[in-house]
């Protein structure tokens, strides 16, 4: 119950915030430009990549996801509403789930808007719908994991800038884990690190049209662990 009420507030907050519109607009614009370029290429050089938009997003989200989550707890702390939330008859978990689901829903809506590109593509050239679909499922989970990481950093501080900066750094490191093979000589270790990176569970599977249980488990695992830790961070405000 608490989850649903918090979710509703968060979602309406996104829809009344100019900043959230700017982020959505930026995502659509950038993916749109790259999509356009891909279309031009596909006329001449090679067939268009059906996973183009999700692949582009897998990098862009490093910078956009933290902007969507930085507010979630940092603002509540700064404005004192956290004290009121923690005296309302709801569990910390309800508050955290509500906020996470609010952010994820907003992201989902933006993601659905980029579907228009897929429709355009499909109407121009024959495309592998299954491939595109798997990439979208991947980037949807991928985004959820990033938002969960962002919400954790938002709960750590009352400064939104610090929250978004720390999440960007963390996401960048997790993203670079993909390149581990270039730095680490030992193949086993490199593979292990890669399996823990965001890209490592996306670029060669979902983005290639493969939906693998282990990748789904990875992103779901990141979400669950981060939300669990966040619940405890929020709870710790009672002791400070």
């Amino acid at each position, binding site marked *: 119950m*608490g989850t649903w*009420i*918090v979710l509703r*507030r968060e979602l*309406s*907050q996104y829809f*009344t*915030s100019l900043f959230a519109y700017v982020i959505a607009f930026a995502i659509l614009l950038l993916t749109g430009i790259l999509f356009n370029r891909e279309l031009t290429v596909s006329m001449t050089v090679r067939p268009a990549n059906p996973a183009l938009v999700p692949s582009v997003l897998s990098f862009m989200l490093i910078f956009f996801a933290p902007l969507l989550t930085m507010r979630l707890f940092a603002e509540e702390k700064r*404005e*004192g*509403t*956290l*004290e*009121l*939330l*923690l*005296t*309302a*008859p*709801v569990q910390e978990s309800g508050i955290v789930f509500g906020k996470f689901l609010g952010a994820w829903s907003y992201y989902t809506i933006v993601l659905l808007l980029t579907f228009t590109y897929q429709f355009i593509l499909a109407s121009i050239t024959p495309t592998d719908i299954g491939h595109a679909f798997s990439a979208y499922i991947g980037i949807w989970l991928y985004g959820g994991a990033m938002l969960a990481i962002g919400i954790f950093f938002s709960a750590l501080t009352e400064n939104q800038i610090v929250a978004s900066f720390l999440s960007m750094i963390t996401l960048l490191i997790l993203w670079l884990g993909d390149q581990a093979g270039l730095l680490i000589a030992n193949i086993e270790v490199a593979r292990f690190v890669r399996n823990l990176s965001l890209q490592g569970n996306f670029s060669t599977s979902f983005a290639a049209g493969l939906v693998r249980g282990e990748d789904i488990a990875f992103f779901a695992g990141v979400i669950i662990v981060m939300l669990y830790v966040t619940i405890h961070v929020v709870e710790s405000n*009672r*002791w400070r």
Partner: protein
Amino acid sequence: MIEAEGLTKRYGKLVAVDHVSFSVQPGEIVGLLGPNGAGKTTTMRMLTGFMPPSEGTARVVGHDIIEDSMAARRAIGYMPERIPIYPDMTVRGYIAFWARLRGIRRPAGHVEAVLKRVDLYDRRDTLIRQLSKGMRQRLGLAQALVHEPEVVILDEPTIGIDPQQVIEVRESVRELGRKHAVLFSTHILTEAEQVCDRVLIINKGHIVAEGDPGELRQQLEPGTQLYVVIGGASADQAAALLSAIPGVISVEVQGEGFNVSTQAGTDIRGAVFAQVSAAGYSLLEIRAVASTLEDIFLNLVSRDSQAEGV
């Protein structure tokens, strides 16, 4: 409605609230009065379930705040010291959100009623960031009342607003007392005197005195003070005459007359009259000066500090 038993809160070595016990009855307004850092906010934060007590517990409408926290929280309306706001929400959206979170499924009617009550109804679609300080204060009060809680806890509801609005807030607190049990904190003594049925004076985490404001005055007044004006005598003559009366502790010049402090339980008015006429002067004025809660408070707080050798 509220029964606190040995509530204690330690921050590391500092004991912010030290075995505080008290109760608030239905329909009663109790003022928690104390200087900065006395432990008022900490006490309230424990009662509202924001932070667990280090020791002791309390019951709110019969629900233990530790064992049965959710039920206790549902019964409370809380206005924190710093008014919590969501700057980008409308007044109506904000109040409806808190109402829903506290279990009201269709809050529209409640929201309308409470906004009318705190006089923000015509501002219902304004963004909170555009409200003035005093309006935010009333918004804070509205969110505490919207779910019609049995117990209302207000942390310094009149701080930082203009005198006119202070009066309005005090009036609304008094009105609240008819339906709800109210615990509110303040460091303004006249406020406690005007608004409360009962006052708890807290200092350094201890309750140092308790009672209705009148009762407290009687209990704690060190003695009685009279203001006396004598005609036909020089200041020195009059002072000498007054000092000679048995039971008088001190005589101080105040304006054209004297402030005369006497031992508790002695009535020197008859003696003053007799002596003044016997000396051939005339008694122009004689009246009792009631010491304010302020005096009592300063007295208590300094006594408390002295006891600790501060």
